[in-house]
């Protein structure tokens, strides 16, 4: 997999005596949607945290575009082109939707974050980009609403928008559809599909019909290990996957 955008090899994470993750490997190709599925407690979010720098892995190696990032802190991985969203909505509830996204866009303009002698409003380009992102998410009309007062669906979209602010080459989405109503699910599904044109998507999701319809590659995890990997067709017909997971959902 020489042309993988993100590659993780033999990643292991241990919490005290509990081996949460062992020998996890994955290779995400550019401009693909790669889904990570598995029952609750399979270690998907732990793996996400290791990839995105929230929790350093105890073993293994992670590279982004060939650059080793195993020990890089989370903020630096964003600069290298990787962004993430969170399973539990993790926004700035007291700030407006606009400010939530603007902060993410501003982070990409590194020098801007150190300017103390003028208002952020002076950067029309950052504000324009923020507006464009809000409009892409379909929440531009709520730009000046406090994020904590948005509906759950809008908060989930904002969560993705904050990751998009980094303009990443790979975006890691942790259960973006969790708790969404049917309309928001459709909107988010087509949003994710559109993202593939601009970046790679690594996705944790429990909504099997969405995963099977939009993914290019699927990796199945159970009890901290990879038990299968392949295209949706391969996964759908894999007996071990059916036994471990799909049996109840598909």
């Amino acid at each position, binding site marked *: 997999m020489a042309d993988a955008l993100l590659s993780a090899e033999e990643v292991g994470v241990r919490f005290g005596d509990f081996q949460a993750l062992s020998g996890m490997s994955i290779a995400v190709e550019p401009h693909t949607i790669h889904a990570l599925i598995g029952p609750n407690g399979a270690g998907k979010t732990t793996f996400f945290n290791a990839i995105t720098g929230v929790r350093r892995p105890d073993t293994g190696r992670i590279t982004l575009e060939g650059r080793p990032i195993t020990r890089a802190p989370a903020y630096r991985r964003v600069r290298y082109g990787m962004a993430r969203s969170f399973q539990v909505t993790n926004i700035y509830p007291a*700030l407006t939707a606009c400010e939530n996204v603007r*902060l993410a866009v*501003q982070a990409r303009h590194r020098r801007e974050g150190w300017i103390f002698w003028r208002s952020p409003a002076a950067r029309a380009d950052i504000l324009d980009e923020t507006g464009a992102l809000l409009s892409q998410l379909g929440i531009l009309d709520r730009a000046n609403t406090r994020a904590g007062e948005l509906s759950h669906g809008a908060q989930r979209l904002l969560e993705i928008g904050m990751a998009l602010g980094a303009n990443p080459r790979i975006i890691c989405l942790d259960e973006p559809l969790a708790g969404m109503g049917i309309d928001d699910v459709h909107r988010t599904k087509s949003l994710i599909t559109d993202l593939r044109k601009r970046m790679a998507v690594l996705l944790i999701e429990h909504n099997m019909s969405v995963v099977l319809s939009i993914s290019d590659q699927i990796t199945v995890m159970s009890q901290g290990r990879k038990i299968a990997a392949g295209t949706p067709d391969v996964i759908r017909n894999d007996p071990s996957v059916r036994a471990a997971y799909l049996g109840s959902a598909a």
Partner: protein
Amino acid sequence: MNDQARFPDRTTALVLVLVVLMPLVMPATLATQILIFAIATLSVILLFGSVGLLSFGQGLYLGAGAYVAGLLLRDVHIGLLPAILAATLATTVLAALLGAIIVRRRDIYFVMLTLAFAQMAYFAALALKDFTGGENGLSGLPRNFGISGLPIASPLAFYGLTGVLFSLAFLLVQRLNASPVGSVLVAIRDNEARTAAIGYNVAIYKLAAFAIAGGIVGLAGALHAAFLGFVPPTDIELEMSQRLVVMGLIGGVGSPAGSLIGAAFYILVSEGLSQVWARWMALIALLIIAIVLYLPGGLWSIGARLSAAAKREKHHG
């Protein structure tokens, strides 16, 4: 962008007017004392209000600024302004060095580290008698100053200098809050983990805020030394750190203007009550309880509430 503080705003004008009016309604020395403590409290408000960092150790940098300025004035005979500047820079560097250790920890551990360093500094000051005068304090500072020919001899002239320096520190904090840096500091306060996840080096921002706050409170210390003509060891005592937090809470950490309100209230109440009742601090304690329970924005927020109510009234009427 209604989250972002504006600069300059009505608060800027109001505070600058108060600085001009204060010596007209009270003795200049009392007004000077208020502004010196307002500068010091500004550092607590910058850390707690803007970044969410509660420092129980700002007295350390106040004391350090006072000793540095005191020694420079007494032994090196550099002018008042160079001594104040040098003390401000020295405490900025000191806060950056200690902050590099302190900002590694969060929440209660952060508070405990600020407290531990402050306590350590107090005993160090007592031990280093040759420099600090130990328990007797650092005495023998010159009493007559001048700045490029202008004599700073009268209490009012010294108030003028303090007023200018307070205004500069106040404007700096307001400007900072209403800038891109300020927006990142607010982001850290509201959700530190997410701020790292969207690409900010949170530790460096915290360290920068800690160093700037150290310089601001060090400036207050330097002025205090020149004002008293003496550096009492109480400047670096833990009680000083505590007093600055109390002034911040009373005034309100939501706005840099809270520093002036908190310091003025505390000092005027202590002036008024300490004559009548030696246990006046008990009233301050009661007030703190009341503010924490019923007025988390401090006294400053009363004004904000009243003006919001007045606006509502206008809309209805």
